[in-house]
């Protein structure tokens, strides 16, 4: 199954670029594994005597634990789990692996005069820490990270994407979100922006295409700098 457009076509039709963080920019949990973070979050729940259902007990994705916590109707506990996740992410980004050619895409887009923003379900502080360490901060107009203690407001909710579009003073239809999850594509569509699926693993191409991605890229090697001008 093929997406409706090529990456070059979508980039030619758009200006501002919105980037998901974990995946398109770096592998956040490269050295601090996500399952270890999920376990840290479960530890917080256990300390508050929460009965953890089996599917959350075995979840390797910390976001599954965070989303479950929000269903308990205890906002303070959700805030505490979110804080714990933020603390873990701040540690994780120090060992994050940069995505090949992500820097080149960011720098080339900046050189071409395209505004750049990050729209991510990761914590804003952790993203800022990574960008700072890699001397990339100056290229980003805005960082829209996880809304605190409000998992329902994360992507696929379109609000963070709208927020980012607003931050770069763009019309939604002129922006393009590059993300590696179906939730990125869903959020982009709901916000009225274009989307490019970053299919960095087998099977993602079909999943992201089915979710409605305008185009698919399997890596950033072919994307910079000529297509970005």
């Amino acid at each position, binding site marked *: 199954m093929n997406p409706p457009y090529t990456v070059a076509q979508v980039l030619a039709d758009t200006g501002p670029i919105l980037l998901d963080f974990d995946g398109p920019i770096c592998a956040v949990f490269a050295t601090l594994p996500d399952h270890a973070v999920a376990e840290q979050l479960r530890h917080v729940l256990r300390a508050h005597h929460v009965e953890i259902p089996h599917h959350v007990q075995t979840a390797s994705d910390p976001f599954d634990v965070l989303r479950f916590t929000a269903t308990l109707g205890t906002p303070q506990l959700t805030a505490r789990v979110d804080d714990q996740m933020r603390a873990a992410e701040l540690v994780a980004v120090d060992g994050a692996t940069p995505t090949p050619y992500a820097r080149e895409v960011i*720098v080339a887009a900046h050189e071409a005069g395209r505004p750049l923003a990050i729209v991510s379900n990761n914590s804003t502080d952790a993203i800022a820490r990574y960008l700072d360490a890699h001397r990339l901060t100056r290229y980003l107009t805005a960082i829209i990270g996880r809304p605190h203690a409000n998992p329902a407001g994360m992507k696929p909710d379109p609000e963070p994407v709208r927020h980012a579009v607003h931050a770069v003073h763009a019309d939604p239809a002129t922006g393009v979100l590059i993300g590696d999850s179906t939730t990125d594509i869903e959020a982009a569509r709901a916000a009225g922006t274009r989307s490019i699926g970053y299919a960095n693993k087998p099977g993602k191409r079909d999943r992201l295409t089915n979710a409605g991605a305008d185009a698919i890229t399997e890596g950033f090697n072919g994307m910079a700098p000529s297509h970005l001008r």
Partner: protein
Amino acid sequence: MALPCLAETQADDLGVRQRAERITRRHTDAIVEAVRELGDLGLVKNAKAEVRVHRAAPLFKLYILNGEEVFFGFYPVVEHTVTIDGKPVAIYDPMGKDAILFHRALSDDETSDAAQYVQQARTWFDSMWSTIARDYTP
């Protein structure tokens, strides 16, 4: 070399260095050619160009004319994406293209530091030329 280098790691890189080497070669060849042409056309009696290179990173440009006039310009370091071996590479690069050249001459107003400036520039140039520089024959 410390500069130009890969932006991500701030590390020296063969491909990045070879790109800088090609640019150096292009510019020095152009100067040597132009000087030779002046001689060939008989526009000047004797024309000779010598090129020597050093291994320190280029951070500024300095022109000394007849030992009397000096032009100096800073190279700010900029990040940009270039294509090396068909792949995009973000590099930190010294950028001389838009540098403003500051001018000093021995003939400047006596109350200025211009004469000292020209002397110091010459001293610096001669020291580089006669110590760490080596021949760079086109």
